[in-house]
């Protein structure tokens, strides 16, 4: 894996984004604006939600802010690569990049890296703004939380690799990022805990990686639990990350080979 190449592509994404100065500034300011209505809605819902979320923090505002953070990161990990490939196939940039000796893994990470980092940072700013409005975080558990966020990103990046492979081979992601994001939003415990999900759909929720990651994240950051107390969720999330990354990596390489065979790699 060529770290220099990945860093160079991420830096190019950053330079491009910051060259649109007004857009870049407003995208950061909008996060702060988002948190204010969220705060008031959460306060209004607190009496209703308090008993439901008792096992994952006490305050609904903190609960839902971490949910918003996680779903933002997941959305980016899912769609950053297929979006970048789609855009760069159309412009010819993808062809230019794959003509270099940089390997396909480094290209995938480099093309999607900036978008994932930007959305993770935006989420972090959201949480920081939340702390100003009263969220109490277990700061000593921050390193654990970072590991959990990394696993969430990796698991969903594996799905992003599969979607990217479909774009390379067939010029469509067949809606995979959108479907997974929808399932994560509804069944991943973003706005309400997974314990309140009706039993008939609970089986589906079992295969939503975000459900495990978000539960572990809240236990760690809001309840201050150590790794040993979230091992079950962490283990399942780790298994998801391994399986999905391996599957995504195979699909991505196979799609490049297919496109080279079909001659569609450099068709705009």
């Amino acid at each position, binding site marked *: 894996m060529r770290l220099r190449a990945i860093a160079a592509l991420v830096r190019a994404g950053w*330079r491009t984004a910051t060259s649109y100065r007004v857009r870049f500034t407003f995208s950061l300011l909008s996060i702060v604006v988002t948190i204010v209505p969220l705060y008031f809605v959460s306060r209004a819902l607190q009496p209703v939600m308090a008993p439901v979320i008792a096992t994952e923090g006490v305050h609904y505002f903190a609960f839902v802010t971490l949910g918003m953070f996680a779903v933002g990161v997941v959305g980016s990990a899912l769609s950053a690569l297929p979006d970048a490939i789609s855009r760069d196939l*159309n412009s*010819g*940039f993808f*062809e*230019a990049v794959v*003509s270099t000796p940089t*390997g396909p893994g480094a290209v995938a990470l480099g093309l999607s890296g900036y978008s994932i980092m930007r959305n993770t940072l935006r989420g972090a700013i959201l949480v920081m703004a939340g702390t100003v409005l009263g969220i109490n975080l277990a700061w000593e558990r921050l390193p654990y939380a970072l590991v959990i966020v990394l696993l969430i990103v990796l698991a969903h990046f594996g799905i992003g690799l599969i979607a990217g492979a479909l774009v390379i081979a067939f010029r469509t992601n067949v809606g995979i990022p959108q479907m997974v994001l929808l399932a994560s939003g509804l069944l991943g415990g973003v706005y309400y805990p997974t314990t309140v999900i009706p039993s008939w759909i609970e089986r589906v929720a079992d295969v939503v990686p975000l459900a495990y990651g978000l539960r572990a994240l809240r236990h760690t950051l809001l309840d201050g639990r150590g790794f040993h107390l979230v091992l079950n969720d962490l283990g399942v999330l780790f298994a998801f990350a391994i399986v999905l990354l391996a599957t995504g990596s195979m699909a991505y390489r196979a799609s490049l080979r297919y496109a080279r065979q079909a*001659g569609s790699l450099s068709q*705009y």
Partner: protein
Amino acid sequence: MSSSTAASSGSPLVSVHALTKRFRVRRSWSDVRRHPFARVQQTSVDRVTFDVRGGEFFGLLGPNGAGKTTLLKVLATFILPDEGEVRIDGYDVVREPELVRARVAPVIANERSLYWRLTAKENLELFAQLWNVPAREIPKRVRDTLEVVGLSDTGRKMVGQFSSGMLQRLLIARALLPEPRVLLLDEPTRSLDPVSAREFRRFLREELATRRNCAVVIATHNADEALGLCTRVGVLNAGRLLAVGTARELAQRAGDDRYVVWTDAPDHPALRNREGTSMLPHSGDLPMNGWTAVTVRAAGGEHASATVLAELIRAGVTVARFERASVTLAELIEAVIRTSPNGEGQ
């Protein structure tokens, strides 16, 4: 075979042997319904064989759809061949694509393949990293390359503000950055003005061929490139390589029996009654006051032309100049296609 072995032993840097590539033909829905399992394929490159050595310019000529771009894309590892063998500097494009990519640089024709919100320098720095140029060499390499293509004074100007000629030069700079052993160019001067195009060809000849000993494969429709720059050219038609030779050889084959006679008596019976004689189009515009250009045929090489000239002079025709008729690229390609039996390649 290692790079150094290939280069030092005088082996070709580009070696293409019996290369064949077929593509599936997209079928209509009704056809798919009638024959769901049928497979229709079109041969884009058909048993093509040629070599290119270091310092050599090889031109690929042919009408649109002849297979030139497909051939370049196989050399660039963008397309996998179905049959045959392609080696770049000794490395196989199918089995060792990473090693091939480290040696071959295609000039991607699409200007959008650059970061338009970055400067020329930033774009080249990015690709220097992707090409794995050693970090300490990058500033000098980028500076030198920008200077070579005449873009060193573009400063903080974003690439999106460049003219099409500047973009073309930047695409070429990007390809030169890794100091490739083999350069692949698809109509490289099409966006350049005539003066820049001539400068660029001079650069290609002096810098790439003479100094760096690169092999350059050019797909072109430009006569100056094909006839003036290329050491050898190959004519492709319908995927088949019909002829390979020096541009002069092929030009002679296309127009070897046509000669231009500059005379003040174009209606002289010795000319008028001669079979295969015609006035050159727009001869009145040609820069020889009072002299008219007339083409005559003389099949049989230099001896035949000498005989014709002697006959004309003996018959009292005043001849100011007698020269081989120049051949346009279109005439050359047409002649090669026409004279190849059933379009069969070499």
